[in-house]
Structures are given as C-alpha cells and as structure tokens.
C-alpha cells in the first residue's frame, strides 16, 4: 500500500481514544475518531476508512445498531470493543456484520493483530482469494480438498474437512458457534453446540501437536472459534 491505512475509532471514552490514537499513529496508521454513533456513521460514510474500531457502549445509540447501519452500504472491516460478561452482545454484533471483537482490557499486540487480519481480509475480498492456508506445519488446500500436516495428507471425515476448511477460509477471524453450525450442519442444527465441541476435539487430536493446548483451533469463550495462522 502506498498510503498508511485509515482507521476510524468510535468510542466515547477520551482516555481510550487518546491511548489508541497515540499507539496507532506510532504504528503507521492514520487515525480519525468519533465520540458517538451518529458521528461515527457520518465519518464512516464521508472518509471511507480501511478499518473501523467500534465500542459497543456508546452514549447515543447501541453499538450493534451502528454496526448494522454501516453494513447497509459498506463492507469495511469492523472490530468491536466490549467488556467481559457481554458475550451475547459480542455474538449479536458479529451476527450483524462485525468482523471481530476484542474484550476490554486488551493488549496492543492483540489489537494490532486484529487490525492486520482485517486489512488482509478486505484486501483478499477485492483481489484473488488465497486457496492454500497454512498454520505452522498444517496446510489446507481449499480448492483441492486436501489437508496436510508436515507434508503428509491427513485422514479427515467429510464433516471434519468441511469444518476445518470453513474455519481456515476465515483464518484469524472469530466465527460464532451459530455461524459454524449453520454452515457445516445446516440451519436446523445450529443450536447444538455439543456437535462443535466433539468435532473440534477430534480435529485438535489430528492437527494439534498438543491437543490440550491448542495453537491452531482456538476457543473464543462464549463466542465461537478461530483458526489461528500465527500471522
């Protein structure tokens, strides 16, 4: 990219805005900010930011609503900020089109990683999609339906491969339980979180070097799962 990416911060807390502006500017991003939802939506429309960081608790409107409104006309990646204990809100925001979330307080490493993933995904959706996803020794070829570990082909059942490839196709982004269940098993089964627990457990045994301490298939407590490439 020839120009520093533009980030829109929507948060009503001046301390958070101040800290994030300083850190992001130092990380070679351009930063603009809004202190409420209305202003945020207006800036999102007029400035076409590359990434939006949106706090879910805003003084004038619900952050989920902001997300929904921006999604009506834009595919810009949205990362929502929220607090522990509001898993329902996080899931609702993700369902309404948010790309990812961070739980306050978060570390800057996490935030930077999320921003990089968001930028990479929006670049991909414009250009060609990657068909081979790798995470350490694991490699998944989405086009040829093959998963290999250390160069050896993995024996996966059809459902396992469907699950793994869906997660890998959205690498480094969180996918909600409901989204995964609907994609892999269909809408009628989207409440059966126990399916996921069983299949993720099986997949971990096949692809993780220590299944009890997973590095690739990461649980997002109360929200869903994430395929981590170590990007």
């Amino acid at each position, binding site marked *: 990219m020839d120009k520093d990416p533009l980030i829109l911060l929507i948060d009503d807390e001046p301390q958070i805005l101040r800290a994030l502006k300083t850190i992001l500017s130092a990380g070679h991003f351009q930063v603009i900010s809004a202190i409420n939802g209305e202003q945020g939506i207006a800036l999102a429309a007029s400035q076409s930011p590359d990434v939006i960081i949106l706090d879910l608790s805003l003084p004038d409107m619900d952050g989920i609503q902001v997300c929904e409104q921006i999604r009506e006309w834009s595919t810009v990646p949205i990362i929502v900020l929220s607090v*522990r*204990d509001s*898993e*329902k809100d996080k899931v609702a925001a993700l369902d309404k089109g948010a790309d990812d979330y961070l739980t306050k*307080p978060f*570390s800057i490493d996490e935030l930077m990683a999320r921003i990089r993933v968001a930028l990479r995904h929006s670049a991909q959706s414009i250009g060609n999609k990657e068909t081979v996803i790798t995470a350490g020794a694991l490699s998944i070829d989405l086009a040829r339906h093959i998963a290999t570990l250390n160069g050896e082909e993995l*024996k996966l*059942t*059809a*459902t396992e491969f469907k699950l793994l490839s869906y997660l890998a196709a959205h690498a480094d982004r969180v996918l909600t*339980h409901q989204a995964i269940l609907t994609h892999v*098993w269909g809408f009628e*089964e989207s409440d*059966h*979180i*126990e*399916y996921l*627990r*069983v*299949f993720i*457990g*099986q997949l971990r045994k096949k692809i993780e070097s220590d299944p*009890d*301490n997973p590095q690739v298939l990461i*649980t997002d*407590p*109360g929200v869903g799962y994430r395929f981590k490439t170590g990007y």
Partner: protein
Amino acid sequence: MNIKFHQIPQWLIGLFGSALIIGLVTVVLKLFATGLQIQLIALLYLLPVLICTLFWGLTSGILAGLLSFLAFNFYFIPPYLTLAVHQSQDVITLIVFLIVAVVVSQLIGQARQAERLARKREWEATRMYELISALAGLTDTQSIIQTLAQKIIDTFGFDQVEIIANEQVNEKPVSYRLSKFVPQEGPCELALSMFTTRTTEGEIRLWFDQNTLSLEETRLLAAFSSQGAMAIERVHLMQRENIARVLEESDRVKTSLLNSVSHELRTPLAAIKASASSLRSGAVDWDTDARRELIATIDEETDSLNLLVGNLLDMSRIEAGALKPMKRWNSIQEIIKGVEVKMQTQLAQHPIEYQIPPDYPLVPTDYVLMGQVFTNLFSNSVKYAPPDSPIVVSAGVSDGNALIKVINQSPAVPEEHLEHIFDKFHRVTQADKITGTGLGLSICKGIIEAHGGKIWAENQPEGFSFNMLLPLTLDGELPKIPKDAIDG
C-alpha cells in the same frame, strides 16, 4: 348447610304446610273416626301439631294448634258444623286441648330453635376454624386474598367477591376477584373495610342478589374480614422485618467490601503508578532489565486489577440474584486449560496436573463464569500452597453429576472453618498475611450454585481439596452427539 337466598321463605312454607296437614287430618278423622270419643280425637289432633312444630318451628306449631282447635270444635263437638259448644264437658276438653297444643308446640319449638342456633354456631365456628387454618401458613398477600375470597364464596354463596389488599408504601395494592358463576359488572352491593387495631389493610367488595344480609351473616362476615386483615397485617410486618434485616446485612457487607476493596485496588495501583512514573521520569535507562521489569509489573498488575473488577461485578450480580449462567455444552478440560494459559505467570511455581479421562463428558456450564471459578480456585491455591507444589485437577462422575476436584498441598484447615471458607470475607488466616479481598471463594460458591451445583472443601491426607458437583444434563437432557462423530 348453606344459607339459601333464592327460595320461598321457610315461615311461609310452614304456614301453608300446617294448614294443609290439619286439613288432611280433619278429613281422615271425619271419614274414619266419627265413632271415637272426643277425648281420643283431641289426642289424635295433637299429633299433627307436634309434627308441624318439629318441621317448621314455633309459629307453624301455634297456627296448627289454633287450626286444629277450630276444626275439632267445628266437626267433632256437638252441635256439629258450628263453633258453638253446648256441654260443659266439651268446653273443658276444648280448653285443655288448646292449652296443651299451644304449650307443647311452644316447648318443642323452643327446643328446636335452640338446637338450630347451636348447629348454626357450630357451623360458623367450623367455617372460622377452616378460614383461620387456611390463612395460617400463607406468607404472601396474593394467596391470602385468594383463599379469603374462596372461603367467602363457599360460606356465603355470594355471586362475586373482590378483595383489594393494600401493599407496602409506594407499591400498588393487589386485588383478586372471584365469581360464583359468571363475572358481574357494575357496582358492588356491599363494601367492607378490612381493618386491624392498627391499620386498614384493604377492602372486601360483595355482589349478591338479596337486599340485606341477616344479622348472623353480617357478624360472620365481619369475623372473616378481620381474620383476613390480621393475616395481611402479619405478612406486612414480616416483610418489613425482612427488609430491615436485609438492609442491615447489606450495609455490613458494603462496609467490609469497601474496606477490603479499597485496600486491594490500591496495591496494584501503587505498583502501576510507581512503575509508570519512574519510566516517565527517565530515571531508568532504555533497554535495561529494570525497564523491562517495570513494564512487566504494569502489565501484570493491570491483569490482577481486571480480575478484581470481574469478581466485584460477579459479586454484585450474585448479591442481586442477577447472575444467570449462559449454560452451553463445554469441555471442563478446555476451560481449565484456558485459565492455566492466562495465569501462566502466577502458576509458574504450581504446575497443573490433570486427572481427567479423555472421554470425559461435556458439562453444561457458562464458559466465562466457570473460567472465573477456576481462576479464583487457582489463585487461592497459589496463595496458600507451599512453593513448587503441583495443583491437581481431577474429574469424575458421581450419581449422574460431574464431580470436579481442585487439590492443592496447602496446610489443613481446621474443621470448624471448612464450611465457612465460602462465606464473604471469611479468612482462616490473619488478613494482613495474605492478599485478596476474601471474595474469591464466595464468588465460586455463587457461580456453582447458579449452575445448580454444589461446592465444598475438605482436608485431604496430603493437602486441601475444593470439590464441585455439577449437573450433567441441560434442561433434563444429555448432549446430542451427531451420528457422523464416530472417529475411525
């Protein structure tokens, strides 16, 4: 024996009945008993008088007496078919008959009335007893007025009853309406205040057909109303006492919470402030170990502040009864692993040893809240267990429940403290020796109980164990494992 309202009055039936019976007896005697002596006929006439008195009471009895006197005179004493009497003997017979008839019917009538009164009293007493015993165990206004309304309808047979009970100040009164058959619209016939010696507790409104209530009904109704008022007053007094007790308790809790929290908040804040200000002052060189140490301190202390804030939030939710776990099928091992990774620094000297079978069932839990439970249990273990001792986590199944144990090697806790360690601010050791708010374990208890489970502590031969029981079913069902999950 209900009091009826929609019938012909008893006394009218009595009068007609008496006239009818005397008429019948006269006809029968006239047809079959003309040859008998008049003294015998007089005796026979006493019979219907007795019967009428027995059936319909004093008035009918006297009427029957008079009627039989007239009929006897008219038909059986010569000259016949007149009321005139010629022989003095017959005059005496007639007078004696009249006196006997009247006196007998009066005596029987009185006895009967006394018996009726006694029965009625007994019936009223039984109804009162039933009402009092029905109201005795009730502890809320709504069920009291429901019971009272039902008893009033059962006892008096009114068409409709509505009871309005005043509630505490600032609260809407509660009301309950009960109809015998169809709901009645329009204004009520009678409204009674329900009052005790101290206050007015509400109002009873009645709908019925007749114009007035009898004296007995009014008296019984007043007794019902005052019993109801007393029951409601009892509930109100109980509620007030409870509120006062809760306020007092929460006041005490708040004070000790504030004391312990302000101390606990200051500790990490002091460390952060010291580290940040020394970094800012430039007193520490860039790229030294000291600098890295300070930055690590800030990072770690914010984490402990975050745990503390999370605990406070959970505590206030548990206190308010607002902690609603989002139960999903979760792997206990995964939850604990997540906590272990997050607590790496604190757990550096206390490796976690897992004793969980690989095929251990999924447990319906709230991932985040259970994470908080294990964070608190580990953080408690780290405080009390000797350095370089492992923490064992085991999981088994006991009576259809998950039995999970967190066992550390801390010294035994005196038995008398065991059941209190989950109380708020309870400490076995002196407060200044160990840091913490004294909230962690009570939060664990609150969360486990909100899951429908149980947590307790016990001394082990080599250490100390926190035990938890959690249900293995969600809404009464086991997890549905998909058919294609059989792993080849």
